[in-house]
């Protein structure tokens, strides 16, 4: 396929990724945070598919599929499922920075990522401008995700921050190099377990400890014996 066209498509998708990060920074409703994350992950899956069409590396197609299953389907489903049981559906308080200030800090983060990557990575790895852009946005997304984690109070929105960071790392790996597929699969598995655990802990904070242990027991029903 036309490489130039592909480049333009990917650039467009990357802009949407940045917009989704901006939405996660500013929105207060937990539902819209999860939706923004879901869309961001879908965009990443699209990017992987377009990159596959460009260079034909089958790992990218596998990566798109794994992202679709784990990040677009399983993780959002699980978070929504627990979220329904938590009374509080809005994360209204932000620590340290207002949403507008956080957007400005995010722009500064992107500049920082650009400067630091252009000094070290671009020269050494001989990345083209296009691949450099992808890696730069990946690093920015990772740092923005970290910022979200610092600013948010509720565990679920912190978890979305962590997931944004993880999406940033995925983006870097897509544009800098493809790790062996088995490693990518294991990382996704690890991520799913981590998120399930974090969200269960969030459930535990908002409920009684008995309900939390019951939920933990339901999640891994074999962990818990029948009540005598």
């Amino acid at each position, binding site marked *: 396929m036309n490489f130039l066209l592909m480049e333009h498509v990917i650039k467009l998708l990357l802009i949407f990724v940045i917009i989704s990060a901006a939405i996660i920074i500013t929105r207060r409703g937990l539902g819209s945070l999860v939706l923004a994350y879901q869309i961001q992950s879908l965009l990443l899956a699209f990017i992987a598919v377009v990159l596959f069409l460009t260079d034909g590396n089958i790992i990218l197609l596998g990566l798109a599929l794994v992202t679709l299953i784990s990040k677009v389907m399983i993780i959002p489903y699980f978070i929504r499922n627990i979220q329904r049981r938590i009374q509080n559906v809005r994360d209204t308080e932000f620590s340290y920075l207002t949403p507008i200030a956080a957007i400005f800090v995010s722009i500064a983060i992107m500049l920082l990522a650009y400067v630091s990557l252009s000094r*070290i990575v671009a020269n050494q790895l001989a990345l083209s401008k296009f691949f450099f852009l992808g890696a730069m946005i990946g690093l920015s997304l990772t740092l923005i995700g970290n910022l979200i984690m610092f600013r948010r109070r509720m565990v679920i929105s912190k978890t979305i921050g962590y997931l944004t960071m993880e999406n940033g790392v995925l983006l870097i790996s897509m544009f800098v190099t493809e*790790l062996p597929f088995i490693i990518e699969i294991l990382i996704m598995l690890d991520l799913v377990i981590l998120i399930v655990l974090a969200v269960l802990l969030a459930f535990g904070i908002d409920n009684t400890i008995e309900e939390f242990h019951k939920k933990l027991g339901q999640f891994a029903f074999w962990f818990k014996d029948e009540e005598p």
Partner: protein
Amino acid sequence: MIIAYIGIGLCILLLLFAFKSHKMMYFLSIMHSLSYLALTVWILNNLKLPIVYSPSSYFYMDYLSIFEVMIASIIFLCAAIYSRGYLKSLITIQELKKENLKLFYIPFNLLLTVTAVSFFINNLALFWIFAELTTLFSVVLIVVLNAKKNIDAALKYLFVSSTSMLFSFIGLIFLFALTKSTLGKGTLNWTVLMESAKLLPPVFLNAAFVFIFIGFAAKAGIFPFHTWLPHAHSRAPSVVSGILSGVLLNIGIYGIIRMNAVLHQSAELSFGMQYFLIFFGVVTIAVSSFCMLRRNNLKKLIAFSSIEHMGFLLVGIGIWSPVALFLVLIHIISHSLIKSLMFFSAGILHRQYHSNNVNFIINAFKLQPFASAMLIIGTIAIIGLPPFALFISKLLILQQLADISHWLLFAILVFMLIAAYAIVSFLVKIFTGEKKDAKINQYITPFTMKLPLIALIIMALLIGLFMPDWLKDWLLTIVNEIMRI
């Protein structure tokens, strides 16, 4: 051989699903760690190491990995023996529900398997995944108690550790890309990285190392990524705290040692990176020693002491001479033994007073003479007094540091004195807290809770007083292996 470790772990797991009695789960946990210990001893005596497992070369066994697995097996064995009496007591006072016992024993055994296997991994990305898994299973062990504060501590642990580990992963991606562009084929296998480090551009290797360091530093509780540690270690059940401090912190240090070894094979050794590690080590010691002052919580104090020791290990790794590395290894094993001993002793005191707060611990010598004595002996060891091996490792690492900077040596000595003062003054408060009219029922400590403490103290004393030749040879082999002498 690694299959044997995984196989034993899976068998024990299946049996744990099948059995429901506490006695059986307890027995299986002991058998699990005992079989790992036996297997490790057998490998050490019968196999010629290192072994790289083909075709993917994802797994690897050398004397350092066997050393770490040996420590993990010993600490897990002691924890498993200790667990029954401790958990029974938790159930009696309803801090733990009886039906949640599986929620303890399954992650406990999974953690042992995952920890042991992680030390046999050659591939850094796979090691990263297993290091993450150890965090996840230990988080479950922290939240098993009926206390909401434990959930807070577990969340902090999960987020700080996993977030830092993501930065590590960025470093691994860059390292993979670097090997791909330099060697023609991307790799994260430690054995290949050691061989080809000379070909990799040092500046870029250093940059990747800085990213990788963030994650492993968080696992080891190094400043400024240490914030999770005091909460997690103090809120966890004491049997788990002993494992967190005695085994899991070693995973972070192990990762740093492996990466630093690659860095030192590089064409141009950057002294900046040496100072980078020493700097973080010294700052970690400084912060932890000041945090130890005016503490009221016994387990938190011990947790901060763990941070201090991790800082000290980082200084030793930063020096990176054969002698320093030899001493780092002695420090690792001694710290693991003593720190588990201290957490297990604190656990007995907690069973007595149902609190770790200094104000609640009264008539300790009268009510719990064994745990009190063990805590005092542990303190003597942990502050670096003879006849324990920590005295030797601290003294000689400081001597090595004197070759680099007298000022740093002086600073660390001051911080160590502050830490020693903090821990000793805390103990003075505990053991002088006497109330003649206080009516507290004595908690009868079961022998199974005393036995691991006796074993730990004997091992720590043996290493300090008569370092056996086989251990000395083993450690020297590790040094030669890692430094490629």
